[in-house]
């Protein structure tokens, strides 16, 4: 056991004393042992060396404490056997080496929890204010909304760390409130994360509105910003209206170029007539790309005017 490390020595010693007094009613034990650790730290700091050298074995210390405090020794035979077993198990657990190690290590994770707590709080707020909007665990930085979410997470983390650093010595009531809040944040965040669907490429690049499905979803190679339809014989077509399987107009990803949609007789822009008339930021019109036309099947097959290849007629 590393008694040359004062912090773990104090933790071990205090845990043993608490274990030896585990039969005290919890309210009595709470009052008696409230600042045992601080007191032991003081002794460790001023006396040096292992606490057992200075104070004797923890069981002896606990006995002296019990007598001085005036607490009565509970007769083990008069106790409920199940309760006694429970207390023995707890004493064994809190006195064990790995429990001591975990307990000594947990406080080092505090700052990490503060950061995580801030992020989770921001996540919960985001989820609360976005019904029906598919949010991901990581905000999308290419949208205004995503940027706002990142900013909110940053502020929340800053606040959480600030709160964490200032809550070293909370009074009993405030401490209970703080622990409850932490537990609630953790639970709600688990629920939010569980309902979140995993990120897909279309979510990353798409500007999804319910009527206008991003045509880009199918094109993982990059965003589609315009569509150039051609006839079978390679003539460019204009004002081709595209709809999806549900009859919704198909839109494309916004690019840097400016799009001039034709305005319909009803005053509304027609957004799915391709190719879109687009101009670069410097005013030059966006020109159609060079395209390669596929070689069609032989003319005899094409005159059959059916897309399915027909078997050769029988004689």
């Amino acid at each position, binding site marked *: 056991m590393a008694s040359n490390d004062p912090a773990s020595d104090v933790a071990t010693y205090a845990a043993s004393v608490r274990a030896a007094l585990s039969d005290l009613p919890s309210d009595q034990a709470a*009052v*008696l042992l*409230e*600042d*045992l*650790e*601080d*007191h032991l*730290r*003081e*002794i460790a*700091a*001023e006396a040096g060396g292992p606490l057992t050298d*200075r*104070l004797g074995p923890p069981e002896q*210390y*606990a006995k*002296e*404490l*019990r*007598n*001085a*405090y*005036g607490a009565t020794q509970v007769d083990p035979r008069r106790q409920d056997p199940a309760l006694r077993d429970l207390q023995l198990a707890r004493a064994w657990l809190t006195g064990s080496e790995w429990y001591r190690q975990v307990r000594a290590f947990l406080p080092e994770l505090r700052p990490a929890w503060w950061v995580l707590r801030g992020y989770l709080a921001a996540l919960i707020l985001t989820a609360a204010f976005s019904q029906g909007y598919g949010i991901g665990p990581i905000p999308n930085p290419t949208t205004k909304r995503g940027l706002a979410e990142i900013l909110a997470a940053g502020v929340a983390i800053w606040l959480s760390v600030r709160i964490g650093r200032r809550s*070293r*010595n909370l009074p009993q009531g405030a401490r209970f409130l703080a622990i409850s809040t932490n537990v609630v944040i953790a639970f709600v965040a688990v629920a939010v994360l569980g309902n979140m669907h995993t990120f897909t490429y279309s979510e990353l690049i798409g500007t999804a509105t319910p009527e206008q499905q991003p045509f880009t979803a199918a094109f993982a190679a990059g965003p589609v910003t315009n569509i150039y339809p051609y006839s079978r014989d390679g003539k460019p077509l204009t004002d081709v209206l595209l709809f999806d399987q549900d009859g919704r107009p198909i839109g494309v990803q916004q690019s840097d170029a400016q799009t001039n949609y034709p305005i319909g007789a009803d005053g509304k822009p027609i957004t799915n007539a391709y190719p879109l008339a687009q101009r670069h930021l410097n005013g030059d019109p966006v020109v159609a790309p060079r395209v390669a036309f596929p070689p069609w099947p032989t003319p005899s097959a094409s005159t059959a005017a059916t897309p399915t290849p027909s078997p050769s007629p029988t004689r």
Partner: protein
Amino acid sequence: MSQAEVDTTQLLKGVLDLAVLAVLADADSYGYDVVRRLRENGLDHVGDASVYGTLRRLYQAGALNSYVVPSEEGPHRKYYGLNNRGRKTLDQSAQTWASLSKALNHLLNGRSNGHGK
């Protein structure tokens, strides 16, 4: 622990409340410092746990007030001080102690006088 130490511990037990109250009447103090001051005043055998337990009991009984003093290096210190009830308890206990010690001294002197005869 020798026989003499055991006796001292037993005797101390009864008057530790009074000793702790007397130390705190001097100046507010924290657990480890109370132990040190008791020992400086000749109560060498006073146990750390006894003092700590006594402080907690007196505090619980409403004889002391307490406040935490943050420290730059080392742990925060919980200081204890007498409140009105503590001062009253100290006065009463001091009187009891005075009459008790007078009686005991008388008894002991009588015994030594008897021996001397």
